């Protein structure tokens, strides 16, 4: 049994400690907002926060995050009012939407660390893959979120 704290709720899950956090979130805790895209930390669709930092949950095991504060897209805000979500809605960023949870989580972590990121900060940090090509709207929404955050 491994004890996890996800979105401020404690869970006990019966998995081996080597199981990637991603699959525990999705298959055991039914938190489906965190997506599988590649399994090798390349695409960022599975990005969550661990103790406030953006982490690709396919590449970290539940053993490593036991006892740490995990936040998924479902826990980012109770009602989609996190500044990043508000900015995303205002710019109307998503197309298919599959990668968006991961990009939103990566952005929220970036803004927590750097409230007003430059384009260069964004380029360096937001390395998620979006195949619909929402990148320019993502950039616009990040700048807007920084404004909303002030």
């Amino acid at each position, binding site marked *: 049994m491994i004890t996890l704290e996800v979105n401020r709720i404690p869970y006990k899950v019966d*998995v*081996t400690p080597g*199981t*990637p956090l991603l*699959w525990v979130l*999705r*298959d*055991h805790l*039914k*938190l*489906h*907002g*965190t*997506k*599988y*895209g*590649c*399994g*090798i930390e*390349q*695409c960022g*669709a599975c990005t969550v926060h661990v103790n406030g930092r953006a982490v690709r949950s396919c590449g970290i095991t539940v053993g490593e995050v036991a006892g740490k504060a995990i936040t*998924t*897209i*479902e826990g*980012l*805000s109770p009602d*989609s009012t996190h500044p990043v*979500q508000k900015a*995303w*809605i205002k710019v*109307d*960023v*998503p*197309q*298919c*939407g*599959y*990668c*968006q*949870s991961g990009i*939103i989580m990566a952005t929220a972590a970036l803004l927590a660390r750097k409230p007003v990121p430059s384009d260069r900060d*964004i*380029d*360096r940090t*937001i*390395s*998620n*893959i*979006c*195949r*619909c*090509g*929402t*990148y*320019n*709207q*993502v*950039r616009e929404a990040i700048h807007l979120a920084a404004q909303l955050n002030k």
Partner: protein
Amino acid sequence: MNIFHLNRREFLKSSALAGGGLILGLSGLPKLAQAGGELAMPSYLRIAPDGGIHLGVPSAEMGQGIHTTLAMLLAEELEVEMSQIHHIETLHHPDFKHPTFREWTNSKLNVQMTGGSVSIRAWHLTFRKLGATARELLRTAATRQWNVPVAECRAVNGRIEHSGTGRSLGYGELAGAASRLTPPENPPLKSPEQFRLLGRAIPRWDTAEKVNGTAVFGTDVDLPGMLYGTVKHCVVFGEKLTGVDDTKAKAVPGVIAIIPLEDQAVVVADSTWAAMQGAKALTLHTSGGHKDLSDENIFQQFRYDLAKAGVPVAHRGDPATAMGKAIRVLELEYEAPMQAHAAMEPLCATASVTPEGCEVWAPTQSSDFAMMMAKGVTELSPEKIKVHTTYLGGGFGRKVEYDFITAPLVASMVLGKPVKITWSREEDTRHDFYRPPFLIQMQFGLDVHNMPQGLRAKLVGPAVSRRWQMPPPWLEENGYDWVVTIGMFDGYNLPNHTPDLSKAYAIPNLQVDFVPSDIQVPTGAWRSIGSSHNTFALESGLDEVAHAGSHDPFELRRKLLTHNPRALAVLDRAEELSGWGKPPEGRFQGMGYTDYLETFQAQVVEVSVSKRGKIKVHKITCVADCGQVFNSHIAKQQLEGAILYGLTAALKGEINVQMGQIVQSNFDDYPMLKLKDTPEINVHLMESHEAPGGLGEAGTPLIGPAVANAVFAATGKRVRRLPIRPKDLV
């Protein structure tokens, strides 16, 4: 197309559309033989007693915003705000067989399907008429209740108002009475000047659920008692499974069953992770397979087949004489490699099969193909099968296939429980139906003014339509396959019809032929199908003609399109908005033009190239006349997204085959464009009330040649094969 009534007991009970109120469906489209009479059909517009609108639509939502736009078309005529649309779902329905695919395939393909940039083109009037019909029924119901003339009642914002007395009733209050009336045959439609919603940048209906993680994609389906699984295919194309060694796989905790199929094994477990670990530990024993297959021998075969006569695609004038008279002949060869679709959501599907019935949940571009697959696997009669289309995490043509529906069906039948199958990214990359590789040879015959008087083009590559078995192949008997010839003077050609060249480049003498050259790699529809390779060749080729004859590339195209005022307007606007001819210091421009599915479009690209051949794309200007625009925000996103999809294929990876198997496997060896690589993109839509053109794919094929032409301007090196590799530029 007529609109008829259904009373509420005729609903598909489990549909989210079920319930009371006013219910409308359409008839007049051919129906599935097994669907029975019209009254057996489920309906797809319901106005509930609370005034909420519940809508079933034919098209799968895969990012193209089709749910939003179809709902807008309805809401415009129905006089409601988008906030009154309470529910939208892709509904499997016999009325929803796609009319355009039927037309394109001489009725060989009569299925519900989303693709080919033809959702809006096919359905825009249907959904406006559906809204108008409901509006008129509600008006009539109100006038009867008040006993006043119809002319005194108007529909405003979800209510019917009486001008004389100021009385009003909400749609929900009128829905019951309206449902007992006979629908009008030809309800009046609004003129474009009267549009409140259409044409505007209306926010997508599904954004809220896509920013909080609640949108349900194929991969998110969750059923009580469900098992999880994955697939492991034979790696070499053509290999068959002869057996498995599953000792190690079964030792993985959580693994429940290994089910061998013809060319793959299904691994089922109590979680997806356990199934994937099981698949890794599983050894497949195989026989056969095309182990000698490689890119080299595929292109060798194409070069050999280049000598063959081929199938006529477009012929005009007297190309032989024109070539004989030419002062100069430019002979050019272009190549396009394979590409995978790489949708962010790997292939997945869920099935629950019992002796009584079967349900499938899938991110499919064709619920009918999923239905056919379920019928084939379960041998149940169609009325016992239900297909639910989830949101698609990208489709791009991959999810029009039905191979990924098999494994969950079989596993559920074998294990007696619902099973969700998720492919690994590696399986998704290595078992795609790839963009076909193509070799394109062109000869431009130039006159004394260096204008092309003749073009002979030969397209050599696989006839992808030949492969389709379950849906009837729409390949013509002589091998003609518009799926791969589109884009080379075959823009809106229909099988057995004379190609419509009236809007194409005015090269008076033309001979375009297609040489089918089948390969052992599965190929399919990749965003923009044949235009992907043909537009690359044609627009790069015209750039070569322009440079050979000292024409400005814009001017050359204008001279060839004097008969097409929409094209000329697009070219003029693109030249102006892009600052053509005046790039900033160190940057170089390239352009291209295309008329993919009646969307007339020009793109201008600004690049710089480093000494090491590294390309930076700084700015892309895209001007499109796609006819009437219904949602300008979504239309621009479609063009921009399609451009970036094409830019990835032009600058990043490619799919290679060696020793009969795909070399690439994941995003580490098949890289994708990222935010840091994304240039400024300016999309400008021309104002137009012409019939809508195709938009979902139009941006993709043009960006490759526009970039390649800019690279030529920067380096003097002509790129005749994509993707552009830095090593080719130094």
